[in-house]
C-alpha cells in the first residue's frame, strides 16, 4: 500500500465522516485545522483511495489536493530577527511553505547578518539539524553569500536549500562544495509578496524543497524505517494520554524519519520509550528517544531496517 500526502479542504459539517474514512482506509491524519466553518485536514492516505475520498467529500464541499510536503518539518533560517529580514521575506516564505502542508519553523540566527562578522552558534546548529531540511534566506550580494556560507553550513547535516538574490546559476557557481538546492531571485526585500512574479518565485522555492525532500525520501526507501512516523504518531496519541492536553497546534510533529513530541523530556521520555509498537516490541527497540534542543521537547529518531532488523 503506497501512502501519499494530501490536503483535504471542506466544510465543518459532517467532516468527521472524512476523518473516519481516512482512518478506516489505513491512512493517518497529520494535522487538522478548523477555521470558522472550514476544515483543513492534512493526511497521508493510500494512493488508490484518493478518488473515493474525493467522491465522498464532494457533497460536503470537500476538495482533495496533493501536498508533497505534508509530514515534513522544515527550518526557514533567517539571518536575524531584525526589521531588515522580517516579516518579508522570511515570514512570507515560512507561511507559503506551511500552506503546502509542511510544518515550518523559523530559525532566527542571533548573528547571521553581515559578511565577515556572520556566525552561527551550537544551539542554532543543533536546532537546524533537528529538521528535515533547512531553507537559508540570504541577501542581495553574491560576494557576501560566497563569503559567509562556509561558516553557516559548518556542522549542518540536513540538506540545505540556499535562497538569494543572484540567479540560480550564479548561486551554483559560487557555492562550493555544492548544497542540496538553490533558488535565485529571493533576496532581502521589504514589501509583501503579492505580485504574480514574486509568488512564482515562492513556488520555485516549494518546488526545490519538494525535489530535495523527494531525494531524501528515495534514499530512506532503500533502507526503510522500522515503523512509519505517521503510524507512530497514532500510537503516541493512543498510549500517551497527556499529549491531548498539549495546546500547541501540532503536539506531535511528523518528520520524514522521526517525530517531535511536545512533552517535557525529563518526565515523559521513559513513557515514550515504553510505547508498545506491536506485541512484545517496545519503541525503545526501534528508535532513539532524544532530548530536543527546541525547548524541552522530545525528539524521536526511528532506526532503519538495517539497524533494528524489524519492519512493523
Amino acid at each position, binding site marked *: 500500500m503506497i501512502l501519499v500526502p494530501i490536503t483535504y479542504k471542506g466544510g465543518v459539517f459532517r467532516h468527521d465522516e472524512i476523518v473516519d474514512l481516512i482512518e478506516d482506509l489505513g491512512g493517518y491524519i497529520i494535522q487538522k485545522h478548523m477555521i470558522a466553518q472550514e476544515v483543513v485536514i492534512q493526511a497521508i492516505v493510500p494512493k488508490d483511495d484518493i478518488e473515493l475520498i474525493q467522491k465522498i467529500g464532494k457533497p460536503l464541499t470537500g476538495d482533495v489536493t496533493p501536498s508533497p510536503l505534508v509530514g515534513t518539518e522544515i527550518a526557514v533560517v533567517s539571518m536575524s530577527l531584525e526589521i531588515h529580514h522580517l516579516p518579508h521575506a522570511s515570514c512570507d516564505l515560512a507561511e507559503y511553505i506551511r500552506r503546502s502542508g509542511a510544518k515550518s519553523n523559523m530559525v532566527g540566527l542571533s548573528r547571521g547578518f*553581515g559578511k*565577515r562578522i556572520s556566525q552561527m552558534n551550537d544551539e542554532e546548529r543543533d536546532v537546524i539539524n533537528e529538521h528535515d531540511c533547512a531553507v537559508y534566506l540570504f541577501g542581495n550580494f553574491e*560576494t557576501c553569500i560566497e563569503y559567509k556560507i562556509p561558516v553557516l553550513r559548518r556542522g549542518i547535516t540536513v540538506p540545505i536549500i540556499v535562497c538569494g538574490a543572484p540567479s540560480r546559476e550564479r548561486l551554483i557557481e559560487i557555492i562550493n562544495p555544492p548544497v542540496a538546492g538553490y533558488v535565485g531571485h529571493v533576496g532581502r*526585500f521589504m*514589501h509583501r509578496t503579492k505580485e504574480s512574479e514574486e509568488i512564482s518565485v515562492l513556488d520555485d522555492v516549494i518546488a526545490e524543497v519538494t525535489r530535495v525532500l523527494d531525494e531524501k525520501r528515495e534514499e530512506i526507501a532503500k533502507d526503510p524505517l522500522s515503523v512509519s512516523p505517521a503510524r507512530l504518531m497514532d500510537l503516541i496519541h493512543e498510549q500517551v494520554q497527556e499529549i491531548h492536553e498539549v495546546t500547541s497546534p501540532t503536539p506531535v510533529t511528523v518528520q520524514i524519519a522521526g517525530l517531535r513530541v511536545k512533552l517535557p523530556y525529563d518526565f515523559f521520555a521513559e513513557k515514550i520509550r515504553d510505547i508498545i509498537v506491536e506485541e512484545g516490541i517496545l519503541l525503545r527497540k526501534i528508535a532513539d528517544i532524544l532530548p530536543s534542543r527546541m525547548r524541552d521537547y522530545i525528539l524521536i529518531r526511528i532506526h532503519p531496517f538495517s539497524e533494528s532488523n524489524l519492519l512493523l
Partner: protein
Amino acid sequence: MLSIEYFQVECYDETGREYYEQLAEVVLLDHNMLRVVHKLHIFIDPRIPIFVATGVTKTIHSHITVNDFANVQIEGGKVTIAIGEETYLSELLRILWEKFGKDHVDQPDRFTIILNLTKEEAQKIADMVVVDPSENLYRDLIYALQVIAPEGFKVRRQYYGKERFYYIASENTLTESADVLIREKFALMGESL
C-alpha cells in the same frame, strides 16, 4: 520615484543594485520620507564592505498649529477646542497641561477641550504651534537609512545639517578615505557638503 529629483543606487553588482533600489524606494515610502528627501545617492560595495548614503532634504517650513487640526471657538474667556484630527491631540494636551495646569484643562469628551482663560490668552490659542515636524525629521530619516543599509554594517557614522545628510556604514573601522568617498558622492549629485 517621481517626487525625488535625483535618486541613484550605485553598485558594481547589478542584481544587488536593483534589489537595493527597490528596497530604498519601499522603505522611504513606508517611512513617509518622500516628502522630505530632495536628492539621494546610495553607494554600496560589499567587497570592502561599505554603504554610503548621501543626500539633500527639502526645506520644511510648515509648523502645525491648533488651527490646522481643530476648530477654536472663543466666547468671552471661554475657549472651546473641537478636535478634527486626533493625531496631534496628545501633543496639544501635553502643552496645555504644562501651560495652564491639568485642573484648568477640561476635556468633557474625547474630541472637545474647554479652557477658561483671559481674553489675551484666548486669542493666542488658535495660532499656537503644536508640532514642529523638523524636530523628528532627521531622526526618522537616519532610521530609514539604517533600515535600508545591510544589517551587518554596524560601524556607522551619520551627519545632518544645512539640509545635507549622510549615513556611512561598514563592518570594519571607518578610515579617512570614508570622508573622501562622501565628498565624491555629494559631487555626483552636483552638491557639496
